[in-house]
């Protein structure tokens, strides 16, 4: 994802030798300035889903509601809210698949009620297949039950919920204003973060002091970096983030299909086809709408974005139907894909009910792309610093886990803070934060690793690998209980 907050952190520049002098000078003058910072227990930089969820948890719990908390967000939070009368034939291109575990957490903190439910789509089935061999696996709770055992009425039917990110953030903001008690600095950029001074009265030399573009200075007992992949808070804390770029871009778009999908409005299906360049996924939205995430090379992403709407629509339909070789050729044409594809589809046998319903049109202005990265911070905590969401980890979107990991981080950090408050610990001390790091690091690392391996596994056309992975996929598909286990993990359960 692109960085959410356009923060020009001076600390970021410090990796360039030439900037060093300037940085040092500014630090000195700032620490000698006479302005007294306002003291907060928690300052959260970044008003995305993870940061908002953390603050909502803290405000909603009686244990932590006495903490003095602030939110700093570079964008105007109120301008970017979802309107309650937003039309249902128009969706944001930034959607996420919320797991039942994430939804449960939003319910517990009282935010789920504030979601615009007409714009949320639950789905009950996933179809995943190999674009090279056509080996396929289908996920639904009914086929995942143990052999011969009857379906229990309590068994869940929903795998996950498709929701626009703006719907999630609007609900959290609305719940936060209902709870009150957060000092919100919206449309305020972080100008600098530096350590405080040791004066006669107080020793703030371990406290991060955040200076905002509006001139305010905030001293943070605990500074939370919910500030995205290029996190200035992480840079301030000197925490390295390691990983690599996949040399792939995710192309997103909001699409209108020819109908509500093959299962009708009450049985929605998510589709993902692994192509050698990356997976193409079609995820259901309410009505006839759907959202596209097509991971592909930067060159092909550029081609797709340059196409006329009719050619783009034809390419998406082809992405689920034609062979990798044909798709490669189609990306070399500057235009005219619609005709070319119509001719080729006549000569390709496709079981239409095994692929998503045809796309009828693409919503204007929603075709966009972002670079795919894998990043993991060395640690999530430091002295008076904690990282959540993309600031801590960036994941390949193929399993739709990014936003859910951020929600898990927020819930875990809120729990850690709550435990610390109960026993009178300083919530910014590394000791108090230890349990957050140990709770989340291994779990996120596993998910990052699995998604990375899946990406690599399906990036090849070498026949032995294709053969093995196809056998694997078919074997898993035949084994209900194993599928149930995999689905439980995907749903965020235990």
């Amino acid at each position, binding site marked *: 994802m692109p960085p959410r907050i356009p923060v020009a952190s001076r600390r970021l520049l410090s990796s360039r030798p030439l900037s060093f002098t300037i940085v040092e000078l500014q630090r000195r003058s700032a620490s000698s300035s006479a302005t007294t910072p306002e*003291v907060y227990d928690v300052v959260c930089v970044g008003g995305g889903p993870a940061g908002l969820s953390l603050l909502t948890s803290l405000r909603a719990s009686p244990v932590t509601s*006495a903490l003095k908390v602030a939110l700093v967000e570079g964008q105007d939070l109120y301008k970017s809210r979802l309107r309650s009368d937003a039309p249902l034939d128009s969706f944001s291109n930034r959607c996420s698949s919320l797991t039942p575990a994430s939804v449960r957490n939003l319910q517990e903190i009282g935010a789920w009620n504030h979601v615009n439910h007409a714009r949320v789509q639950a789905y009950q089935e996933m179809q995943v297949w190999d674009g090279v061999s056509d080996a396929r696996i289908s996920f639904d709770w009914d086929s995942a039950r143990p052999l011969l055992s009857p379906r229990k009425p309590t068994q869940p039917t929903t795998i996950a919920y498709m929701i626009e990110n703006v719907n999630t953030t609007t609900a959290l903001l609305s719940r936060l204003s209902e709870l009150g008690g957060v000092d919100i600095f919206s449309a305020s950029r972080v100008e600098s973060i530096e350590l405080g001074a040791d004066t006669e*009265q*107080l*020793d*703030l*030399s*371990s*406290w991060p002091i955040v200076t905002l573009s509006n001139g305010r200075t905030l001293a943070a*007992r605990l500074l939370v970096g919910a500030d995205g992949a290029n996190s200035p808070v992480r840079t301030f804390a000197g925490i390295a983030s390691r990983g690599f770029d996949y040399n792939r871009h995710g192309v997103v778009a909001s699409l209108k299909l020819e109908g509500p999908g093959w299962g009708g409005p009450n049985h929605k299906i998510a589709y993902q086809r692994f192509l050698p360049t990356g997976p193409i996924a079609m995820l259901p939205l309410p009505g006839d709408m759907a959202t596209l995430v097509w991971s592909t090379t930067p060159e092909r992403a550029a081609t797709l974005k340059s196409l006329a709407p009719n050619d783009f629509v034809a390419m998406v339909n082809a992405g689920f139907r034609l062979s990798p070789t044909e798709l490669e050729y189609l990306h070399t044409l500057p235009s005219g894909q619609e005709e070319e594809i119509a001719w080729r589809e006549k000569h390709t046998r496709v079981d239409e009910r095994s692929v998503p319903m045809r796309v009828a049109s693409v919503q204007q202005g929603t075709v966009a792309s972002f670079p795919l990265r894998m990043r993991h911070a060395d640690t999530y905590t430091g002295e008076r610093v904690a990282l959540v969401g993309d600031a801590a980890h960036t994941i390949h979107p193929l399993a739709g886990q990014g936003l859910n990991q951020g929600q898990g981080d927020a819930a875990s950090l809120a729990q850690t803070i709550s*435990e610390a408050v*109960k*026993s*009178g*610990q*300083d919530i910014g*001390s*590394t*000791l108090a934060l*230890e349990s957050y790091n140990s709770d989340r690091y291994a779990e996120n690392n596993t998910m990052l690793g699995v998604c990375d391996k899946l990406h690599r596994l399906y990036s090849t056309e070498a026949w032995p690998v294709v053969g093995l992975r196809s056998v694997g996929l078919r074997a898993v598909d035949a084994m209900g209980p194993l599928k149930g286990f995999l689905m439980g993990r995907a749903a965020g359960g235990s």
Partner: protein
Amino acid sequence: MSSLSLSRFTPTACRLAARSSRRAAPILYRHPNSSPSFRHHTTHSTPTSANSSVDPNEVSHFNALASSWWDPHGPSRLLHLMNPLRHDFISRCRASTASSSPPIRYLDIGCGGGIFAESAARLPTTASVTAIDPTPEVLRVAEAHKRRDPALMAPNKLTYLNKSIEELPVPSSPAEGYDVVSVFEVLEHVSAPGPFLERVMQQVRPGGWLVLSTIARTWTSWMVTNVVAEDVLGIVPKGTHEWSKYVNEGELKEWFGRQKGWGGGVGEMRVMGVVYVPGLGWKEVPGGEGWGNYFFGVRRDEV
């Protein structure tokens, strides 16, 4: 001799071994807190200055530990990890009888670098914390660390005094005593627990609680604290513990049973055994008071 005078339980050989190595650490650790004071006359206790019962050897030991007191990975790590259990235990004691309602006034004896004192001062139910320790160097560490938290700098919230218990004025009337008086990981550093506790008890108001934690004097605790923790694992600084000074829970119960006006009602004497499990942290273990670290709480009867 009172049962709390340990010398008669201590084989001379053991005592000498413990002393010569001066390693101490509990299995669970004992707080390298300061030592309490109490002057006294057990046969083997180190002579102390005329007006204090503090053991000078203990003071110098804790002076040396002072700089690393707040290092979460330093020699006091086990104490930091134990701290939330202290609050659990106090809450449990106070919940077991009709205790005075918040805000609560605390006196922490042998506060060391202030691990417990700071945490108690941060609780929303706390009115004030007075914390004393005879070791000047750890008190300086405590004062310096307090300045790092504006919440602790509120007037009268947290007051450190470089005093031994004998130097602390006795409340002019019992009702002016403290709601909670804590003596954590101190008793095992005291050579004459009886007279020391008598001093401490004068600070508790009627209806208030005296809460302490220490280590049982058993072969297990000797093995774990003096040999394993200090020599083998090195997780506790050498010379922290002197096994002969450990007090058993049965001895405390019996001793308080004989004190008039203490622990008279049902549930007014409580105990909780705890054990440190590497990788898991401190865990409550029913019956653990018989062989390792334990908490002990006793309530002063209402008048």
